[in-house]
């Protein structure tokens, strides 16, 4: 499962989502500025508050980093 924690204004979140779309990868999005539960979940997973946080089957990536995403996707 892939989940991305975002805020509505974050450019790197947009870039990360575009990247998944380009690759045809399905993902779930949670906006942590309005969704308190998702926010806590994100903090618990990443031990920090910055966005985006991307959870790829348990591999936690903070920020938009193409090579880390590729690695976690197993490419």
């Amino acid at each position: 499962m892939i989940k991305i924690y975002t805020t509505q204004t974050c450019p790197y979140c947009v870039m990360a989502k575009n990247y998944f779309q380009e690759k045809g990868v399905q993902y779930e999005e949670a906006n942590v500025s309005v969704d308190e539960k998702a926010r806590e979940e994100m903090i618990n997973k990443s031990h920090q508050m910055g966005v985006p946080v991307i959870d790829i089957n348990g591999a936690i990536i903070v920020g938009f980093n193409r090579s880390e995403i590729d690695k976690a996707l197993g490419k």
Partner: protein
Amino acid sequence: MYDLIIIGGGPAGIAAGIYAARKKLKTLLIAESIGGQPVIASEINNFIGFKSLSGVQLKQIFEEHLRAHSGIEIEEGPKVAKIEKEKDVFAVFTDKDKSYQTKTVLIAVGSSPRRLNAPGEKKFEGKGVFYCSICDAPLMKNKTTVVVGGGNSGFYAVLDLLSYASKIYVLEYSDTLRADPVYIEKAEKSGKVEIIKMAEVKEILGDKFVSSIKYQDRNSGEIKEIKAEGVFVSIGYQSNSAMAEGLVDIDDKGKIVVNHKTQATSCEGVWSAGDVTDVLYNQINVAIGDAIKAVLSIYEHLNKKPQSH
């Protein structure tokens, strides 16, 4: 062996890539990510030809134009760790333990947000200490937040925070704000911004996350503390010139020294453009122009080389 390796994927790197492709130079562009610094701008109103667009929109336009040229190879993701010169050939090493050989290099790696280097800053990065206000301002909903820096980038952060934070303190080191008056006015009108000048940040404190910031009043010498859950550091930018240390001349501010006619550095075969250089004006339009100058100069250099030997 490449004719040219462009390092950096911001406006300068992209402009250079397009020109190099049109000149049919065998080119590799290596960038951690395409788009560069403008990506985090919520609105750009001075990019010529466009009345208004966001940083992400600009990135998309740039990337589309760059990728329309099939002649250029793009390695997106790796970071260049060092560049070595041996006779007339350069080896460019990435953090992925790969190396590439090239006749010329264009360094266009831009700049990054400057750090305060105050105790606690590193420990709490992402845990209340932020550098990208457009990204992380929404997390400050109903929270007290401190913005460090009274220049334009500081006030961009203030404006990004206005619709979320309950209270915003601006800490400015000097006795004057360098931000444009329109931004200061907008901030003051909101009624929730308090500006403190002559303030030197001493420490960022907290347990797991930031809970307060200590600063010294530079007039009285008194140490004061503000309870806040967020600290946005906006004290300008520093040149990402580290990879070029020892290879080219770098000035005392860490910027690569270039010949402003050609963008050539002190090392023959290496050019540089954009915010990593000692250019006076850090503007997208200027970075693009400088990168184009560099590629035209590189093209001339590559073409005249055989005759000079």
